[in-house]
């Protein structure tokens, strides 16, 4: 059998068994009644002991949502979602205030251990060899906020961060403890009226992370949030808000997994980033929600709104994403380049296999003078999946000297999948310089044979070629996550579990 044909066969055989994170945790949970109404919104707000302004904000979003319709422009196809058949809130029981990690339900701790997420405050040792000529391994600390279904169950390294002046806590706590910051920034990047899913999130979001880095502070460690959907028929609506004040820097990573279930689950998150003058946020995502089984049954609907606002001059926001999971991905992490000389980056690896559908990309909105942006997108389609890059680059009338460079590369494995590139470019200022490059290629028979003749197996050869294809983007990830992402990519495309 020709080598490519064999790879295609292997990819076709990939089954649910391959999803390593598909287990379910048996814990009691506290849920809101099924369905969505004003009462649901009030229930969630009450559960969180929210101040009245927050409830009002949610209700306004809810009323707005009732008047909106679900968007249909993306190249994805799914049966109509019954929004009354979803639980909007689920929290692990018993619900009490935790003062230390030892009070967390051991079942939940075990879950995160299985997922390889350290909730205990230990420095992570890099278990990898440094590349030739690279820097030697060093112990690094990563602070983790773990979100289980609708609530945050643990946030590590709180004390150390506090000493640096960095606020890193569940957003539900931030609403109570730092209302002035939350009120000042929440909904200013993604307004409650922004789009159908963002508005829904605004009404029912239950938890997520809040980060504030004060002026001039370089956050002393990587911050990370780990999202886990466990409950059946539950939507996850997390809300993340990160503010980097003048001259500060923070690097943030989120990871996601969910159990294998036959029914589809909805994930509609909102992430808002704000950078003030000279500040920088680096936001990385490794998304591995359950993608559905080999017949296309089950999996997460990932309808997410992520946007960063480079509000201050010389500020910078960089998105890096590795998307391997979800049945459907609808996601466009974007940058509003408002401050003069601000810059935005989007580095993306989107892998689709089986029956997965991905419609993802970015928007770079150039408003300020001499703003620059860079888009590097790598799409890999295998199986019967459809993989679309959709991106907008626009320059406002006043965006003199705006510059963008876009490169979209697609790699096809097999002949039953599709890769699509839909770029939108709008320049209202004649001095703007926009470059766009796009390529589509297949893994050729000759390349595979060359690798195999040198002793590599079929799967190793595909893994090697794919990792080479995505290298530019992997390099943007923090070291440990790059190694993890590399493994994940191989697993997503191989016929066997690593």
């Amino acid at each position: 059998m020709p080598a490519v044909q064999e790879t295609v066969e292997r990819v076709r055989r990939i089954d649910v068994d391959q999803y390593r994170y598909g287990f379910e945790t048996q814990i009691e949970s506290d849920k809101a009644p099924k369905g969505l109404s004003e009462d649901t919104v009030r229930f969630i707000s009450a559960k969180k002991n929210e101040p009245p302004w927050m409830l009002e904000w949610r209700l306004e979003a809810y009323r707005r949502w009732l008047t909106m319709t679900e968007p249909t422009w993306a190249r994805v196809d799914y049966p109509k979602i019954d929004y009354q058949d979803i639980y909007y809130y689920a929290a692990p029981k018993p619900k009490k205030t935790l003062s230390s990690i030892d009070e967390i339900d051991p079942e939940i701790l075990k879950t995160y251990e299985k997922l390889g997420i350290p909730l205990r405050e230990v420095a992570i040792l890099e278990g990898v060899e440094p590349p030739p000529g690279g820097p030697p391994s060093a112990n690094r600390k990563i602070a983790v906020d773990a979100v289980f279904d609708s609530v945050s169950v643990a946030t590590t390294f709180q004390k150390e961060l506090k000493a640096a002046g960095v606020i890193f806590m569940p957003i539900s706590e931030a609403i109570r403890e730092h209302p002035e910051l939350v009120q000042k920034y929440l909904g200013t990047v993604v307004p409650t009226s922004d789009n159908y899913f963002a508005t829904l999130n605004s009404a029912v979001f239950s938890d997520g992370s809040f980060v504030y880095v004060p002026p001039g502070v370089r956050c002393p460690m990587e911050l990370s949030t780990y999202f886990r959907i466990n409950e059946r028929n539950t939507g996850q609506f997390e809300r993340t808000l990160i503010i980097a004040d003048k001259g500060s820097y923070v690097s943030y990573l989120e990871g996601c997994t969910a159990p294998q279930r036959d029914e589809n689950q909805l994930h509609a998150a909102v992430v808002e980033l704000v950078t003030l003058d000279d500040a920088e946020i680096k936001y990385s995502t490794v998304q591995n929600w359950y993608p559905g089984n080999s017949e296309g049954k089950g999996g997460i609907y990932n309808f997410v709104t992520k946007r960063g606002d480079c509000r201050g001059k010389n500020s910078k926001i960089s998105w890096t994403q590795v998307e391997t999971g979800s049945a459907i991905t609808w996601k466009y992490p974007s940058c509003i380049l408002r401050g003069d000389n601000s810059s935005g980056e989007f580095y993306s690896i989107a892998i689709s296999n089986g029956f997965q559908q991905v419609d993802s990309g970015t928007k770079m909105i150039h408003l300020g003078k001499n703003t620059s942006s860079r888009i590097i997108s790598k799409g890999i389609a295998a199986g019967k999946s459809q993989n679309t890059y959709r991106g907008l680059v626009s320059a406002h009338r006043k965006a003199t000297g705006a510059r963008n460079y876009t490169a979209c590369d697609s790699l096809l494995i097999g002949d039953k999948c599709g890769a699509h590139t839909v770029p939108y470019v709008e320049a209202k200022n004649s001095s703007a310089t926009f470059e766009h490059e796009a390529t589509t290629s297949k893994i050729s028979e000759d390349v595979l044979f060359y690798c195999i003749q040198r002793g590599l197996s079929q799967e190793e050869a595909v893994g090697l070629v794919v990792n080479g294809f995505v290298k530019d983007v992997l390099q943007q990830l923090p070291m440990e996550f790059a190694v993890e992402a590399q493994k994940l990519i191989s697993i997503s495309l191989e016929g066997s579990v690593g």
Partner: protein
Amino acid sequence: MSLLEVKDLQVRVEEREILHGLSLNVNPGEVHAIMGPNGSGKSTLSHVIAGKPGYEVTGGQILFRGEDLLEMDPNERAAKGVFLAFQYPVEIPGVTTWNFLHAALNAQRKARGEDEISSPAFLKKVREVAKSLNIPQDMLKRGVNVGFSGGEKKRNEILQMALFEPAVCILDEMDSGLDIDALRIAADGVNALRSPERAMVVITHYQRLLNYIVPDVVHVMSKGRVVKSGGKELALELEESGYAQFEDAA
């Protein structure tokens, strides 16, 4: 026992028979040259020995140290010591030569039940090998064959040959695309790897290469068969009179 024994090999590509009963015996330490006009089946032979997909073997056998080579996957053959130096080595963007060679060597070692070689140990080894072949270290850091000149690509093949230490090397039209200086450098590399244990099969269209890599045995192929075998003087004879005299013999 021969190292490599091709017996009455018949091969088809898409219903068309390319090799009609080809036989060849290669012993350790020998260098065999296979010459012939375009379309005589030289490259088909090299591909079938290495196990390239797309060829259908309809008859005959290939034995490697007495084992049936055709029953093995191509990577298994590589681990056993069969190496093909490609006429057109492929480019693999984003994968450094260093990384590629390390992965391939470890895959071969694993298949043979040997321990994997660590990154530092490998780095040391590959640097030594590169140095012995006068290959600049810089090449190891670049993407596999990406932006390499014709000569560099061939030297990369020889580097791999030296690193993997195969028992039999098939050199498929190694001279194509090389100027005379590059050819000499590549040939020097190959000669350095000649040893009493290792056999080489040099496939070429022109006699020129054989001035630099002097063969023990020369085979002339025409229309899918070996039509004449002899010593190195046979190559010179061919240079004089061309392939036409063998067309009728086939």
